[in-house]
Structure formats: C-alpha cells, structure tokens
C-alpha cells in the first residue's frame, strides 16, 4: 500500500501525517517506529487512514510547548478535525494510546470508536533507568528474532522522546486518566500482549472495569510490540473490532468442512 505524506496545521504545530485508503476515517497515533506495518496496510484496504506523527515524537522537532499528554491530545484532535469532517475511529499504540485515551476523553463527539494497543497509562512496569535505545527496543518484543526485524530508535530520537515523556509526566501510572475512564462512552477495545514486559496485561481489567463499553483482548505470545510479535493476530482483532465494535465477539467463521 502506498502512503502519501502530508502536513496539517493544528493548535500551533505543523503535524506530519501519512494517508492511504478510502472509506470511513481512521486516525492512528502510532508509537515511533511502528508505522508501515501489516496493520497499516490491512486498515488501508478498508478505511481512509491518517497516521499522525505527534509533535515532539519521531523525526519531528523538539516540542517544548506541550506540557501534558492532554495538550498533545488537543493537537491530535485539531489535526484530525482538519483532516476529516466525519467522526472517526481512533487507534493509538503504546504512548500513542495514552494520547488517544486523553483525546477520547476530551473530544467524545469526534471519536466513534477507540482502539488502544498496548496502552501504558495504567500500571506500567518500572522501566530500567538509563536503558539504551537498543535495550528499550529489545524489551518491547517477546522474541529477540522479532526485535531484529525492526530498527531501534536512533540515539538522538530515543533521547528526545525520553526527555519529552518525562517532562509530560507520561512515565508511570496516570491516576488522572484512570479517574476519567468512565467518561469514555464510545466502543473501546484495549489490546495487550500476554508477555508485555513494559505494562502488565493484567492492567487490561482496569479498562474493562471502568470504561462502560469496553472489551479487552489478550494476544498470546506477544510482547509490547504486538505488531512485531504477532502481526496477524493484531490485524485480525483490530479489523474485526473496527468493523463490528462490541459485536466483534459474535462468531461468523463457518464450521462447515464439507457441505
């Protein structure tokens, strides 16, 4: 799938994005390095997707303006509103999922459905102090051979993002977001890798308990970067949920072997 790069002005930032596909709009807030995956291709087959690069993340300039995760969510919501006039499905992964959570809380009328992939807002594990980019990268996968298929962040980007997230107080449990989970009323799916070493998959139950219309999914034999360890399983659950929302629990696969 060919993605077209563009920029959109939003809340004082010029936000870079990648666009592909047609159909209902999907806004993606991806963890840096998790773009151009099987998930993006599969979504672009069915939907009009916009993958945003959050200011301060990836190759974007240092963001000294935003003070909280909520500020970033405001920027993302403004960018999404410029890119599409329709309500959209919002998909966030890792730190991007934390931003997506805030965006769904702040902009409930824009977000049609919310999909959180490995969100870290609730009960993240303590991260190793002074970990290198390579160490942090390896921690994201259940299997080292999968880690080798993805490039770790450059030392420069890793240092920039680490400092940025620390400044946003985005490292550790977010009690404020947890207190507001009940305000999310759109269909919401939270997906965790069973072997996630950055956030326990047991935190999934908090989303289930506190978000009124929530499903949780556990991906077997996957770490934090589910799209790296079990891409087919992630695609399957995300596409099903984007299509059917909470009714994705209804089985449609045929059991007939020889009609």
């Amino acid at each position, binding site marked *: 799938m060919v993605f077209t790069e563009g920029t959109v002005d939003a809340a004082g930032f010029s936000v870079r994005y990648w666009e592909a596909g047609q159909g209902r709009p999907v806004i993606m807030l991806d963890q840096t390095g998790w773009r151009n995956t099987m998930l993006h291709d599969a979504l672009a087959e069915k939907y009009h997707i916009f993958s945003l690069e959050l200011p301060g993340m990836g190759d974007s300039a240092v963001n000294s303006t935003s003070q909280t995760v909520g500020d970033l969510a405001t920027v993302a919501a403004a960018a999404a509103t410029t890119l599409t006039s329709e309500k959209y499905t919002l998909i966030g992964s890792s730190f991007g999922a934390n931003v997506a959570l805030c965006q769904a809380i702040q902009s409930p009328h824009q977000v049609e459905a919310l999909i959180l992939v490995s969100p870290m807002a609730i009960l993240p594990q303590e991260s190793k102090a002074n970990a290198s980019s390579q160490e942090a990268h390896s921690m994201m996968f259940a299997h080292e051979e999968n880690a080798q298929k993805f490039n770790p962040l450059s030392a420069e980007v890793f240092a920039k993002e680490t400092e940025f997230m620390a400044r946003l107080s985005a490292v550790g449990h977010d009690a404020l977001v947890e207190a507001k989970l009940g305000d999310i009323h759109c269909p919401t799916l939270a997906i965790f890798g*069973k072997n996630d070493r950055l956030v326990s998959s047991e935190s*999934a*139950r908090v989303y289930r308990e506190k978000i009124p219309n929530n*499903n*949780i999914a*556990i991906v077997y034999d996957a770490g934090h970067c589910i799209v790296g360890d079990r891409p087919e399983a*992630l695609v399957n*659950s995300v596409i099903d949920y984007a299509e059917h929302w909470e009714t994705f*629990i209804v089985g449609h696969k045929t059991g007939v072997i020889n009609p």
Partner: protein
Amino acid sequence: MKASLFAGMGYSERHKFPFTWPVPPAYSDPEVSVRSYQEGMDECALAEDVGFDWISFSEHHYSGRIPTGTPAVMAAAVAERCKRITIAVLGHLLPLNNPIRVAEELALLDNLTNGRLVAGFLRGTPNEDQVYSVNPAEGRGRLLESMDLILKALTEPQPFSWEGRYYQYRTVAVWPRPVQQPFPPVIVGTRSDDTIRYAAENRLGLGVSFLSVEETAVITDKYHKWCEEAGWTPGPDNIVYRGSIYVAETDELANEWFEGLMKSKPGPNIPMRRTVAEAIQSARTGGPFDLRGLVAGSPEGDVVGNALGINFLGGPDTVAKQIREFHDRCGIGVIDMPFQQNKVDHKAVMEELELFGREVIPQIREF
C-alpha cells in the same frame, strides 16, 4: 511422602481384548461396564480408607484399559464417594481439548470438592493424537498455548478475548472461580525440556511417568535447576511420579506373579499398526515418512508398541525401598500408582490396596 491411587477404572474383562488400539466398542458389554466402574469406585473408597492421600484420574480414549475419556466426569463421581482425599486429574490432554472447557471443568471440580483438586496438563501419547483429529505436528504448540490460556481463564476476574495461534475466543469469563486461589495446584506431565522449563518458570509442579529412576532424575534435576533460576523451590507435592505396581505379601509371591505374566506374553500397552504409529511419530517430529517403505495394511494386524513394565514389584519392604529411591534421588513427593495390571482382577486389586495401606504407606510416610 504421599501415596496416590491412579484410578484406571478398567473394564473388568480387559484381559479378553484383542491387541489393537482402538479397542472396538463391540467389546463393551454395558452390564460388565457398569459393574467395572462400580468396582473401580470401590477401589477408590478403599484407598481413602487405608490411608492413600490422592486419587488420580487420567484422560485416555478408545479402550477399556483406562476408560476415562472424560476424567472430570469420573473425578466428580468419585469425589462424591470419597469426601476427604485429594482428587487429582492427571490430567487433561490439552492438545485434544477446548482449553476453556478444561478451565471450566477444573473450576467446577475445585468447587465440588471444596478445594481438594490437583490439576494436570499433558500432551498425551502419540495414539491419542488420532482422537478428535488433532494434527500431531501441532501438539506441542497447542499444549503450550493451552496452558497459558487455562491459567489466564482461571485467574482473570474480567471477561476477555484471547487471540492465540491455535485458539481464538472473543469472550472468556469462567465461572465459578476456583476455591483454591489463584488456581488449584497444577502438575505438568512431561519429559520435554520446553515444558519442564514452562513448569519451572510458572511455578507449577512436575509429573514424570513410567521411567527408570535414572531417567527420571535427569528430568527432575533440570526441573530443580530451572525452578532455582526462576527464584523458587518446589515442595514435595510439586513432584509426582507415576509408576505401575504389583505388591504381594512376599517378594517370592510377587516374582511368581511377574513370571506368570511374562509367560503369558503380554501384548503392547498401546498397540497400533506400524504404519499409523510411524506416521504419527513423523508428524510429531517433522521427520520423513514413506508409507511404501512399511508393511501397510497387513491382515495379521502388524501392531507395534511396548508392553508396559512394572516399576514397583515385590513385597511391602522391597516396594517401599524402590519408592524411596525415587524420593531420595529425584525429590519425588507423591507416588501415583495404577494397581489394575492386565492380569490382576478387582478382588486382587482390593487385597493389594489393603496390603499397601497396611505395610507400605506407614513406611513411605517417613520419607
């Protein structure tokens, strides 16, 4: 050390079976079958009375030798007769089963027994791969995923979806929760490194069956080492050895019985056609298989397999010493024994259980 009766619940006229697997259901006479299960339950009740600590049940299919294809059903029936003893399902053959159904059965059994359940996870012998048409090549992967899923299903307080390699369930919410929290004791029955390691890393017990003490020690040594690496030390109830037994009043009487057994030329324990046996093994290991290289479809029934040996044989003192070796060398804390040998009828099993309870259990208690 604890003693466990492996309740085979064998069909009482099993000595009349042909050397085939599966044994045709035509050999099952309902009247004999009903009586056999009643006799098996009488053996369980006696085992509890004479001081056994556990009764175990095992999933085996398509034969009257151990006709407990649904071990949880059998365990539930016995648990109603035997109110004090630990009920061990050792165990479900996970690659064959719906893991959620297994979790539900275990949770229900733990409730029915008020927390007396021990659960077992096994892959099963090669012949069992034919039951429910599971691809033998997928057995190990299914076993590993099933263990993860069952433990998650038993412990997760909120409904969840499971996106596995072999299993996908969009709603899992097992009721009731187990009485024993977070879940009942689990024994992983295995000889394979990856599942020994799984048991150690997940703080589960280990079960070893029918091997010599030397072979068993190789496995238990690995288990102890990997438990230590995982930061815990298994207790005596965590390591179970299953071995067949014949105990008589004296060594001479036991040896006499054994010699008689050998003279009768016992057939293979799980006889299969050579073609089928080798096809399954090839699929399990990924090795080559050429049907034309074998004697296919022989009318003589060219079965292969080994007659099951007797691990513990002798008078009470000799048997106690043999059991002690497993305890001392391998750290075995529970010895699980099938008394229903091929040429031993119900009356003789009852006599053996009495003898074992009277003469052997007091000795192994001291180990």
